[in-house]
Structure formats: structure tokens, C-alpha cells
């Protein structure tokens, strides 16, 4: 299982922490969503800054699109189930659909995060760019 999780996470570099993962799960089950960032933060259970960062990452990776109308408090988010991922996105969603699966992926993300710590703090912007690179690869 661990090797499968690693393989999936290697192919989906935009998923780097628990917030990314849980936001992805939320949009997978709510694929068309008209919502404010505050409500989203409350639903998913992370602070609003984390949510904002994860949203940017998922949008940059093409997994999510967001309406641009800034006069509205709420934004329309549309989950792109068929985003180019080589089939890894559905595999990840299937895996984390169970409680055990989610726990295993979160554990793997934690290990990866710890491993990244020496060269610590890869900026989210860079991460997002990397995700775009993968998307267009």
C-alpha cells in the first residue's frame, strides 16, 4: 500500500499536505460549488490562509477552476474530474474514500513533508508552478 501511495503522490505533486488532500476530497464530492473562502475553511476544517494556498495550488494544477467575478463574496468552483493526471487522480480519490486510506495518505504526506524540511520551505508559488509543469508534461 505504501508503495502505491508513494507512486500516486509522486504523480500528483500538487498534493503536499493534509489541507490539499482534504480540499481535493471536498471538491470531488462537491464538484460544482458556489461558496465563500470562509465557509470553505469551516467545511474542510483548516484556517483560511491554508485554504487559500491549497486553492491556488489545485487551480494551478488544473484540477479546479474558479470564477473570476470579484464583486461576489462567493466564488464558483468547478472540479475537473478529467484533469490530466494519467489516471492518478481517480486512484487517489478512491484510496482516500475510506478512513484507513485517508489516514495512510496523510501519514505518507507527513513523512514527505519531514523529508523536505532540510531544504525547507519550498515556497507554495514554486510548488504551484511545479504542479503546472507536471500538468503540461
Amino acid at each position: 500500500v505504501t508503495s502505491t501511495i508513494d507512486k500516486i503522490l509522486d504523480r500528483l505533486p500538487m498534493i503536499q499536505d493534509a489541507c490539499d488532500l482534504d480540499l481535493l476530497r471536498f471538491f470531488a464530492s462537491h464538484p460544482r460549488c458556489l461558496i465563500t473562502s470562509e465557509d470553505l475553511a469551516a467545511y474542510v476544517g483548516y484556517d483560511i490562509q491554508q485554504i487559500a494556498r491549497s486553492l491556488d495550488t489545485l487551480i494551478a494544477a488544473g484540477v479546479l477552476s474558479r470564477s473570476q467575478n470579484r464583486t461576489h463574496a462567493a466564488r464558483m468552483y468547478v472540479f475537473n474530474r478529467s484533469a490530466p493526471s494519467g489516471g492518478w487522480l481517480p486512484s487517489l480519490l478512491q484510496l482516500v474514500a475510506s478512513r484507513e486510506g485517508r489516514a495512510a495518505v496523510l501519514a505518507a504526506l507527513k513523512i514527505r513533508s519531514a523529508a523536505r524540511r532540510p531544504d525547507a520551505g519550498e515556497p507554495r508559488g514554486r510548488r504551484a508552478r511545479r504542479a503546472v509543469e507536471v500538468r503540461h508534461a
Partner: protein
Amino acid sequence: MPERDLVKTGISGLDPILFGGIPRGNLIVVEGAAGTGKTTLGVEFVFRGAAEFDEPGLIVLFEVAPERILREAALFGWNLQELEEQGRIKILFTTRRVFQQELQQADSLLLDEARQIGARRLFVDSFAPLNERGDNGQSPRESFHILAEGLQRENLTAMMALEIPAHEETRLTTAMPEEFVSDTIMVLRLEPVQRAAVRSLEVLKSRGHDYQMGRHTFRIVDGQGVEVYRRVQAPRGLEREDAAAYDTSRRIATGIPGLDPLLGGGMWPGATTLVVGVSGVGKSVMALQYLAEGARRGERGLMVTLDEPAAQVMRNAGTIGIDLQGEIDRGMIELWYDPPQEMEIDRHFARLETLVRTFQPQRVVVDSLSTYGSSLGKANQSFRDFLHACVGLMKEHQITAVYNHENPEMLGMTSMMGEMTVSSLVDTIILMNWVETGDTFRHGLTVAKMRASPIVRRTHECEIVDGLGLRVLPRAIEGAVPIMPFPAYYGLIARAPERRPRAAADVSADGA
């Protein structure tokens, strides 16, 4: 209202109650407590619109994840995902606050989503009654009105689920501004019946057109969705009443040897006959013979059995020489067993209507009416309304129907139907009971009533012969008292006549 101005819900049985549908553009509020079926009804409204009427629709959810709605819809055979991929349905998740804000904005993102697919229908799941002032200090009624205006701008026929308390008393004391502002109101209930529960749907209001009032039963059926069964008591239309005229050129043979002469040659076509008697007296046997006779003459027959399962009825038929299975296979007889436990009478009647329409029987037997009585409870009016509906249905289709009714009295009969006084609804009444002579119970049969035909109310003996069935014997009951003029009796007013001693009777008869 012209049909084009009505939105058909497409929900089984609901459009007839709405006399064709809901006026286009109406704002429909579907009220109900938790578990009453609001979401299923609303999702089906949008699904049927997109799948059957080329009317795309938007489903707006506040609490349930769209993924779950897709999964539950699949259980009913509704492929929402496919319709979504085809751009005929959109399922959108939002919050109540955002929804209300959006409907107040000209460039609403939400309504833009609806416009993109050309939505004609909208379902919103769900609102709690607005009982607090809005963000702008609006009253609940104003808030809801603003919301309704937003929807009407788009000419959407919108259905909104409204959560209400389970207890009717609480509901009635709660101010419901939504009820005043909306155009159509449907209330869904879970009503306790004995220790069970029955779902009911009531249309309380529908601006711009008429509808069938009252509480109609409905079910949520796997693989199908919502099925509404019109309240059995609701009038069906004048054609049923108009069809009651008899064809006097022919008679319907009963198939009971010796009975037709007592009925002036047989029953009238389309007549309603009640066969009353204690359990075991031969009512069901008579019914089977009646159907078998019809099959022999090429007339289709339907037997509605409530007391005995189909296999048992077939066995019984076999013992009197009737090959019921053979007739069923030939398509001449249909046997429908509906267990009486927790019977939903509206649903039962809807099924009966469907059978009558599709199988087109000329003869129908219901065995027995008394079982309906126990299912309908003690309210005599309900039973009477039900029988009236049955009689109307049969007459509309010119079906000659026989209803068996169990009378609890073993010897004699002080009333025809006990507490269920509906004998005035029927055209013919045949009484069957036991006559005790010496140490033997013998079958007695009396034609007590027959509309539009002179009859002799004389009791005849009959018998059930193994392998042959019931027959009325040509001879009078052994030891029967010769008929004497009234002066030969006393106690006539008390309906307990006794013969006067011969000498006294002779004196009276002489006028002394």
C-alpha cells in the same frame, strides 16, 4: 389552463392530482419534516424534466453532498451523472446565505449557471422557515419575497424544500411566510397508522389552477422513485357516474347451477353484487365458478383476493374442478393477491385501476369486502367511500362485479353488513347462511335485493359437491313451513312472526 402553460412533474401519479401539472413559473414549496421524501421528490422533478420533457434543470444543495445525491438517484435508476455530462442538469452546492445574496444580484453566478444550460426547472434543498430578520433588517416575509422575485426573473419553475417540525400542532402555530409568498404548496407527511406509518402528500395551494385536494398516499419505490396514489375517496369524473346505465338486452350467467333463474336469468351487465354470508358458507366457491363461467364464455375475469394467497385459491379451485392456472395461462383470468396487513388503500385502489385498465376484465370478484373494512379502520365513511370508488370504477368499464362480504352471524341474519352499512350502493344482494334442521347445518341462499328485476325472496337450499362446486337445489328446504297469509301470524311488526294456533288463525282469517 392550456397544457403548454403547465409544467408536468413526470412523477408517477402526481400530475393527475395537479390536474395536469403546475403552472409554468410557479414557485413551489414542498414542506415536510425530516425523512418525509422532500429531496427525492425535488430531485425527481428535475430529473424527469431533463430526461422526459427536454427541460434542463438545476439542483441546489445546502447540506447534502452532490456526490451522495448522484449515488441515491442511481438507486432509482436516474442517471444524473449522464445528464450532467450532457449539460441537461447541474448540481450545485452552496450555502443558504450565498444563495439568498446571489438571487439579489443581477449578475448572479448561480443564475448564470442555470442560464448556461437553459434551465427551466430548479430544485433547492432545503430551507428552514425564515423566522429571523435578514441581514438588511428585512422581515422573513420580505426576505422570502425577494428570493422568490429573483427566481421569477429567470422564469424558472422552482421547487424549494422547506423543513418543518414533525408535529403538526407545532407547525400550525409557527408563522410560515413562505406559505404566503409561494404559488404552490405541497406538504409531505409521515402519518402513523396503528403502529405503522404511511407517507402522504397534500397540495395546500396552487395559484392559477385547480387541483385534487386532500391527503394522497405516496411511496418511494426502489428502481422507480416517487409514486403517488390519488386519495381513493376523490371524485374521478362524471364519466364513471354516467356509465352506470344498464344494458337490458342481456344477462350475465353466474355459472352456479340453479342460481340464474332466481336472478331473472342472470346478473345485469355492469351490476354490483354483494354476496353476504358467514365464513365457510361457499362465497369464494361461488366466486370461482363465476369467473370460470366467464372464461368459458370468453369473458376475462379478475379475482382480487385479500384473505387467501394465490396458491391456496388455486388449490381450492382445483377441488371444484376449475383449472385456474390453465385459465391464467390462457390470459382469461388474473389473480391478484394483496395481503391485507398494513394495506395502503389508495395504493391498492390505484393498482386495481391499473389492472382494470390494462387487463380489461368483464368480470371482477373481490374476496372479501370485510377485509377492506379491517384495513380501513372503524370509520364507516372511509369504507363507504372506498366501495363507492370501486363501484364507480367497475361501472365505468361495464364490469359485472361480485363482492363477497363475511357476515359474522352463523344462523339467520339480523343485518346484512353489520357496522359497514353500504348495501344501498349495490344492485344485487345474495344472502348465504346456515339453516339448522335437526342436527345438520344446511346451506340456505336467498336473493334479497335485485335492482330493476322482480325477484322472489325465497330461501333455497344449495350444496357444494366435491369436484363440481356450488349448486342451488330445485327443491324447497325439507320441512319448510307452507306460506300462510299474514293473519296466520302474530309478531309481524317485531319481525319475529309465530304461527297462531290453527283455530285462532281460522277465526282471524274469517274476520271475527
